[in-house]
């Protein structure tokens, strides 16, 4: 009994409630005519689409820089990479690889500046990160109009300049990962092997990094900065490194997202993209200064599962699509829960 209670406490009540909710959705689904195979497949595809973006939370949480509400900044680097790759004339699978290559310098540069800024505002990182994200999206809105892109599939037809609001990735890196080693079971269940493998690779790299000397130092900075300073770790340097990593991961994450989704969304598209990623990792059991790869996997699966299942099941049961409202309440409620936990106010 005691061990069960301890397990429940360590697992966290919100996670259990959300897990049970998702489970009940899956149980109800066949009775109301929703196909399990298709829904499960959708859930896994959406898991793959979003998992790298959620993974982008991990380094910053580890170094105690807080939840990365500034995710859109990294997304901007990814958008620059994706559009540059298309502009330079790459197609097919190569364009995906080149998008990653083109996004990397921007990710590193943005991350470095963002990290330097966050070092100056210790204690107020999260609200400033939020507004750095918003400002960067708004700034890039102007840039998408002004930058000299010329590729005919990307610019407005009549003016010949200024990027479109959505650009199709078809013919470029659409399903570059999804279709790699993809297999089907039955009629409706499709498993996007390539995308899941790609996530596994990136997640493994992050995991391995966190177990190197620098990675351990990062954890030390996050959990006990005084101790870290005493052991001769340069806190500012480690924090900057973590922010650079997070920003780069966000850039990679959005490219993975686009190759599955099929469209590059510019302008105000990425505006609120940080909140789903933040709440996903929190649903997975992370807190403001503690997160693991496991939190990413569990959280993304639960969050995307609910997002996929609620519209179809709810629609079938009560003929009303309340999924948007449920999403808002669950995701923001989760963030609030994490922000109000007492134990985290350590610095």
């Amino acid at each position, binding site marked *: 009994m005691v061990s069960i209670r301890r397990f429940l406490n360590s697992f966290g009540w919100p996670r259990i409630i959300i897990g049970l909710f998702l489970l009940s959705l899956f149980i109800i689904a066949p009775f109301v005519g929703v196909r399990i195979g298709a829904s499960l497949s959708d859930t896994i595809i959406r898991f793959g689409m979003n998992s790298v973006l959620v993974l982008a939370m991990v380094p910053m949480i580890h170094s105690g820089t807080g939840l990365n509400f500034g995710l859109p900044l990294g997304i901007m680097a990814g958008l620059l990479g994706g559009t540059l790759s298309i502009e330079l004339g790459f197609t097919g699978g190569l364009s995906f690889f080149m998008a990653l290559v083109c996004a990397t310098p921007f990710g590193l540069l943005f991350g470095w500046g963002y990290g330097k800024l966050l070092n100056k505002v210790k204690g107020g990182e999260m609200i400033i990160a939020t507004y750095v994200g918003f400002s960067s999206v708004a700034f890039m809105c102007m840039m998408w109009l002004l930058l000299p892109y010329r590729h005919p599939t990307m610019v407005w037809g009549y003016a010949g300049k200024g990027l479109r609001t959505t650009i199709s990735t078809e013919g470029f890196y659409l399903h570059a990962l999804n279709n790699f080693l993809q297999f089907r079971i039955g009629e409706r269940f499709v498993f996007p092997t390539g995308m899941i493998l790609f996530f596994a690779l990136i997640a493994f790299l992050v995991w391995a990094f966190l177990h190197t000397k620098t990675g351990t130092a990062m954890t030390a900075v996050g959990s006990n900065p005084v101790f870290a300073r005493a052991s001769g770790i340069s806190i500012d340097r480690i924090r900057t490194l973590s922010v650079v990593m997070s920003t780069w991961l966000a850039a990679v994450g959005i490219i993975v997202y686009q190759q599955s989704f099929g469209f590059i969304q510019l302008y105000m598209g990425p505006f609120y993209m940080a909140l789903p990623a933040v709440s996903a990792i929190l649903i997975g059991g992370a807190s403001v200064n503690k997160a693991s790869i496991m939190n990413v996997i569990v959280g993304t699966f639960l969050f995307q599962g609910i997002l996929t299942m609620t519209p179809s099941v709810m629609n079938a049961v009560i003929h009303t699509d309340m999924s948007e409202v449920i999403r808002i309440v669950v995701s923001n409620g989760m963030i609030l829960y994490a922000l*109000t936990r007492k134990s985290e106010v350590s610095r």
Partner: protein
Amino acid sequence: MSELRETRWEKTLNVLEKNAVPILFLIIGAIGIIFSGYSMNYLGQEIIVRIARNSFLIISLLIPIMAGMGLNFGMTLGAMAGQIGLIFVTDWAIAGIPGMVLAMIISTPISALLGWMCGKILNMAKGREMVTSYIIGFFINGVYQLIVLYGMGPVIPIKDPALVLPRGYGIRNTVNLIRMRRSLDNLLAIRIFGISIPVMTLAVIALLCLFIVWFKKSKLGQDMRAVGQDMEVARAAGIRVEHTRIVSIVISTILAGYGMIIYLQNMGTLNTYNSHMQIGMFSIAALLVGGASVNRASIGNVFLGVALFHLMFIVSPMAGKNLIGQAQLGEFFRVFVSYGVITLALVLYEIRKRHTRSRAGRLLAQEQLDARRLADD
């Protein structure tokens, strides 16, 4: 000896830094006026309208700042309460000033409840009130949608078919407030040099300013300032810190609800699912443009801020069109500036907090050094 003491140059820099944001906006505004080609009369009229429309909302932010809780991003809660009041009044077909007053009366208990909840949660998240209140805004927005989009019709009776979505429940995206439109503004409007001035609205705002001035001097206001300065000291002095913080948020939320009603009677239409989300950002940006910071804001900041911020807002699309040939660029520019100024103000506040700490330390060191020299002599 003097290398450690504050130089005149440093003092000038300090003053400049404190007023950096308003000065920057004055410059942007001036450039914008030149390139937009608007007449002074037009600009004057627009700014008067916007001062009347927005000031009440922005003043609602002052009290939490006094209590040291930073910028109240949770003012959207009050805005939602105000909107619910307006929806009911529109449904009951009550027009003009009585309608507005009734909407305010309906919004008050809702605002108070939401504000109390918000205050409770913020007390659990001391040290990161701003990001928490920001997320509370989103969270309650979900609840608001649940009530307005699904609850109104089947659970909460709404009679007017013009309000309800064609599917039979939920409120439409836009609610026409034609019965209340400009009822406060037109109550006592006078024209000076061709500029129409909504005297009654301005009088209400002036009344609120008097209330704020009085409130600052009241016992509760003093308590709030003490809590804002140092929670532990205030607690030692016998002030109920948690209670005081909750009260400050409740007052702010109720005022924001009233402010929203005044704002919407001027606009004339209610965007049921959007109006409240934007208003928080615009109000906070305007206050910061006026030279306020996270821990220091006055009524002067409010009016300077509304004028400068909205000047930029009015001129930038036209200036963008005349400069580069794209009005859209100007629109993106003003969105960028709104977010940018909040970012800048938050960053400056955090940096200044550190800077003040180190400067105080340096001055103390200098004093001790001087004292020792004096003793040696």
